[in-house]
């Protein structure tokens, strides 16, 4: 039971061969997202900004005593979580919605999931512009630590990639994954200190969140850098990186293991 062809011999060689496809798919995703909208890419900035304003109005009366500069605090968490949430939700369908193509021609299948996560990340980079605007408007201090933001984004990107690959392959065999994942991410959002300080959680729950919620690792690191203007703690950096690489390994391994069976189920 073997298929040998020089197309498949080497993973990295193949990845290199199709790198332009990845680039085109990412630019297609971005292009189609805002096609026929007057403001175009401005929505990448405007959208999170509007959500942030609403959430600030709603929550600032509840938490403003504990948190100074609530808009920036909220925005740091919200941007990162939204990226993970939206890009993995799109990656879930990356195999099933490209069924027609995958049945007709040979393309490395992971490329579709990778393209969804990557275009989500490009979107996130646009949205960082909105963060800068909020920081300027609220008079938040800028420190050189802000320049460390790629460290956090890379961790989160790798984590989301692993998550997206895992979800995409699982959804081929069980279409209920998409609904289950919906519920999971909603719970996940409330268990991540996005609009409340983590100290508000009861002790037992706080232990769980700070030790087992990967989004906590990333959001807190990001806040250390941008909001507090200090280096993130080494423990968080280590935990975040380890989780990201672990998730990527699991997602990638599951995907490679099952990808040959996709064609029979899509």
């Amino acid at each position: 039971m073997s298929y040998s062809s020089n197309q498949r011999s080497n993973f990295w060689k193949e990845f290199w061969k199709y790198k332009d496809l990845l680039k085109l798919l990412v630019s297609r995703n971005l292009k189609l997202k805002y096609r026929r909208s007057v403001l175009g890419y401005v929505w990448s900035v405007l959208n999170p900004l509007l959500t942030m304003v609403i959430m600030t109005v709603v929550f600032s009366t509840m938490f403003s005593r504990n948190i100074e500069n609530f808009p920036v605090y909220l925005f740091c968490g919200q941007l990162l979580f939204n990226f993970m949430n939206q890009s993995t939700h799109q990656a879930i369908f990356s195999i099933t919605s490209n069924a027609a193509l995958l049945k007709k021609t040979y393309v490395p299948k992971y490329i579709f999931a990778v393209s969804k996560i990557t275009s989500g990340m490009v979107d996130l980079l646009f949205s960082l512009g909105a963060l800068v605007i909020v920081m300027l408007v609220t008079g938040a201090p800028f420190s050189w630590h802000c320049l460390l933001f790629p460290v956090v984004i890379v961790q989160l990107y790798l984590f989301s990639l692993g998550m997206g690959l895992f979800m995409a392959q699982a959804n081929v065999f069980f279409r209920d994954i998409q609904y289950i994942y919906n519920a999971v991410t909603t719970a996940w959002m409330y268990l991540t200190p996005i609009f409340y300080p983590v100290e508000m959680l009861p002790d037992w729950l706080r232990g769980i969140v700070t030790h087992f919620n990967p989004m906590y690792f990333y959001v807190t690191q990001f806040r250390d850098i941008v909001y507090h203007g200090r280096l993130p703690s080494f423990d968080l950096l280590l935990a975040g990186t380890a989780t990201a690489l672990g998730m990527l390994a699991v997602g990638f391994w599951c995907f490679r293991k099952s990808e040959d069976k996709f064609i029979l189920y899509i």
Partner: protein
Amino acid sequence: MDQKPVMIDVDHVTIRFNLSNQKVDNIKEYFVKLVKRELMFQEFLAVNDVSFQVRQGEAWGLIGTNGSGKSTMLKTISGILKPYKGSVTVNGSVAPLIELGAGFDPELSARENIFLNGCVLGHSEKFMQEHFDEIVDFAEIHKFLDSPLKNYSSGMRARLGFSVATMVKPDILIVDEILSVGDYKFRKKCEARMKELLSGGTTLLYVSHSIDEVKRLCDHALWIDKGVARMQGEAKAVCDAYMEVMKK
């Protein structure tokens, strides 16, 4: 002939499909069936123990009735399906034309789709840039280059797909009954293009229900009947034998 290198080696290939009546695609059903021990795998062998070797520069026609496994065979050679038993060895680049313009995005313009489809076939963006004009010339779509592909007719889409796939000289060209949508003039043009590629050393695998076309284009033929290879050899002999049986 024998000194030419083998391009495609299909060695005792069997391809299996799951024919189970209901598709179990959600977890609840999966567990219910698992508990009731109904998770059976009704197997169906779309291709059963087929072997053949294609040498460089040969043109093979695959003939057979509907559902006999021709397309499945082609998909396995393209790398889309994996054989259940046996092995397929392919030496060289494959341009599969199993459906023209698979990989086209209807929302994007023809210009963007040329690049997208080229990259789906494994070419680089730079390479597509160099061949862009040739592709547009062959497909004759200058006027509509920037309108979205969803406004194209199926014939125009087929032209574009064929141009993209054959503009680059592939080592192996796989063509699966796709030219039927084009008009007469375009089909002639495609045939001429395929002959040109053939004389340039490209190996061709061709599926068609038009026996005349197979006779005209191919030098060898493989007759698959219900997944089993009935006969292979010189195109004319195989086609005649096939027609003999069909007429009965």
